[in-house]
């Protein structure tokens, strides 16, 4: 690695720390309904929307009403996107003349975008029409992200509520996330990206006659506007097949930096929003610190591994599946950011990373997407681990556990365990199914340990709502489209519903003043405990699977063994 490459990483991390309080403070004002930077333009729009939707913005919902609102809204979105794909061939904005999508793929894709996973079993430029990409996918990119933010805002209200039942109002949180947070940031990012060369048009494919006299049919489309929100909303579903490795999707090192930064900026800032909202900024920074340390640890291991020469190809540095304008360091930095954040967009092929770098990408997802994580989803996932840590710490000192002055009791701990177990079970059980059936095995591109990793990665990515892939696996089969689809539903609502249940039961509890026996949750000691709990839970659950895949593959590669 060169000094320049270290500088780029330092710049990335530094900017993240600087922007966290800025954006985080703004979001805290937005979700408390206070006056903010944009309210003079957006307040009238917001109020107009509430009138049209037919809700009273001050009406409060308990956790069940809030959960029903989330479920109904997502159900409507799913049905619309599913049907839209089935009939896209008959609809306008289809200059490339693409046909309808077959039902298994349409189910998988609709699930994928509604659950904020954005796993793609299809190639964008050759499967989906401009209309589907625009009013189907772009919309879900916004609203699935907004749903995640809404749920974490509801959880926070539950944690600080003073013996009430209210978690706020889902429709209000949904509208505010979209209007005040996602839309303005997307507009800025889109304009910057177009300036760098990301396409934004509704033209038919451009025919070019190449130097060797052949025809290139260059795909076009309204890509930039979709790419901006796919990065900011930790969606990750590319406009083109190879996602942000495509030169039209990510043309320059600057566009690359902007897109990488957009992956983490909202999830990181939400920790500050959290601190402000619970009335103690150190609580937010403690969570930020745990996330930041885990991110840098994983990134470091990935970089060391990637810069270790591969004996199979005679020890040259691996550029397979990487773009020259980014190089190895930026490809790995993106790989780390996109897997911790449940984003899932890629600028290099994870399948061609060194086995250990690919293994860390897997581990990042397996830990439950809590290292920054998806917008909203990362923070509520992390708060699940916080509850678990408080509980374990309570057991160790023999005191009844409490968090932010509220008692953590059996009900909350059960729900927290459920939220951790459901996605983990989906990953391991479905992977087992994938490697014992012909339908699962016949999709592999790589053999040996890497073939196992391909299957493991697919279900991990689905259940963690990440969406990146070891893309050698041909996932566009009824087997994978169905099972990964189910994994994505489990990974999304198997966490959201327990989280809202926790929010509901915490909301009804009295806040007791801190005493000498209270375990502080904003101390360095707590950060260390939290990290330990996350790693131990992840390691115990997934170490056997990781051993069979990435770890054994690294050992085989060191012996120059191929398959």
């Amino acid at each position, binding site marked *: 690695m060169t000094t320049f490459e270290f500088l780029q990483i330092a710049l990335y991390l530094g900017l993240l720390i600087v922007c966290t309080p800025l954006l985080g403070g703004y979001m805290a004002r937005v979700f408390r309904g206070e006056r903010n930077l944009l309210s003079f333009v957006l307040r009238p729009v917001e109020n107009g929307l509430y009138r049209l939707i037919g809700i009273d913005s001050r009406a409060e919902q308990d956790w069940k009403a809030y959960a029903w609102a989330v479920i109904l809204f997502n159900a409507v979105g799913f049905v619309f996107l599913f049907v839209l794909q089935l009939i896209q061939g008959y609809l306008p904005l289809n200059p490339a003349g693409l046909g309808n999508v077959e039902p298994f793929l349409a189910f998988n894709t609709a699930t994928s975008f509604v659950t904020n996973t954005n796993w793609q079993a299809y190639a964008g430029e050759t499967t989906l029409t401009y209309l589907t990409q625009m009013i189907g996918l*772009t919309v879900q990119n916004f609203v699935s992200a907004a749903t995640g933010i809404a749920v974490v805002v509801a959880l926070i209200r539950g944690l600080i509520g003073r013996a009430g039942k209210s978690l706020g109002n889902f429709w209000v949180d949904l509208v505010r996330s979209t209007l005040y947070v996602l839309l303005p940031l997307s507009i800025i990012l889109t304009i910057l990206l177009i300036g760098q060369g990301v396409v934004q048009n509704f033209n038919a494919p451009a025919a070019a006659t190449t130097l060797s006299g052949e025809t290139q049919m260059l795909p076009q489309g309204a890509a930039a*506007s979709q790419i901006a929100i796919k990065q900011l909303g930790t969606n990750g579903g590319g406009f083109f097949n190879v996602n942000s490795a495509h030169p039209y999707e990510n043309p320059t090192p600057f566009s690359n930096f902007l897109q990488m930064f957009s992956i983490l900026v909202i999830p990181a800032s939400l920790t500050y929003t959290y601190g402000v909202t619970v009335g103690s900024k150190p609580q937010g920074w403690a969570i930020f610190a745990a996330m930041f340390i885990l991110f840098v640890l994983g990134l470091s291991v990935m970089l060391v591994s990637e810069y270790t020469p591969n004996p199979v190809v005679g020890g040259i540095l691996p550029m397979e599946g990487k773009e020259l304008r980014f190089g190895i360091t930026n490809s790995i930095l993106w790989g780390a950011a996109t897997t911790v954040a449940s984003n899932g967009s890629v600028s290099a092929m994870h399948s*061609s990373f060194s086995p250990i770098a690919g293994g860390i990408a897997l581990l990042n997802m397996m830990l439950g997407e809590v290292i920054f994580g998806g917008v909203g989803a990362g923070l509520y996932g992390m708060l699940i681990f916080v509850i678990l840590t408080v509980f374990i710490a309570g057991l160790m000192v023999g005191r009844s556990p409490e968090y932010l002055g509220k008692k953590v009791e059996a009900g909350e701990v059960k729900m927290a365990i459920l939220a951790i177990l459901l996605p983990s079970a989906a990953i391991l059980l479905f992977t087992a199914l994938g490697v014992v059936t012909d339908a699962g095995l016949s999709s592999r591109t790589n053999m040996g340990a890497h073939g196992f990793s391909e299957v493991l990665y697919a279900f991990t990515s689905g259940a963690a709502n990440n969406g990146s892939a070891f893309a050698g696996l041909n996932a566009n089969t009824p087997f994978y489209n169905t099972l990964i689809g189910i994994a994505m539903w489990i990974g999304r609502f198997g966490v959201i519903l327990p989280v809202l249940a926790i929010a509901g039961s915490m909301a009804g509890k009295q806040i007791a003043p801190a005493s000498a026996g209270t375990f502080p949750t904003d101390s360095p000691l707590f950060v260390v405990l939290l990290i330990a709990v996350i790693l131990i839970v992840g390691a115990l659950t997934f170490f056997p699977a990781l051993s069979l895949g990435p770890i054994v593959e690294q050992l085989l590669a060191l012996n120059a063994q191929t398959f």
Partner: protein
Amino acid sequence: MAKQLRAALTAFILLSLITGVLYPLLMTGIGQVFFPYQANGSLIVQDGQVVGSALIGQTTDDPAYFWWRPSAVNAMQGSSADALTASGATNYGWTNATLADQVVERAAAIRAAHNLPEDAPIPSDLLFASASGLDPHISPEAAALQIDRVAQARGLERAQVESLTTQYTEAPQFGILGQPRVNVLLLNLALDSIE
């Protein structure tokens, strides 16, 4: 419940209009007004004909041109008029036997084409396929390796080709982001315009 369902439907329709219609249309408008070249694919037009995009790689084995990186999709070679230029990668892992063979073959072919000794190191971007299959760039080292061959095939002075190569080598953006790289299509078009 009926009230919630009605809210779900109207909220979905309204947010779809804002984020799925107004937002992309507004962005397309702004893009077309302020960045028409970039927003339309950075297409290079010569004598009224589109010869490619400054952002998209092609492929050639003509010794008079600089060569691009290997591609997993044959898209760079062009496609039929009704087939879109797709993007794609091999996704081969470190222990993939095909990848190991390809690297050996590519190295041998490059050494043969450039009269290099058997143990001459080859820049790794010429040995490995890119992520998009459409990578428009090669490393300055990969370009340097090809200068003699191109100069010879065109009957040009080495120095002339070398200075063009330097001219088309892009530094890291803003002096810090990314790495130095050569845009192969722009360089090849510049070579063509000499004669």
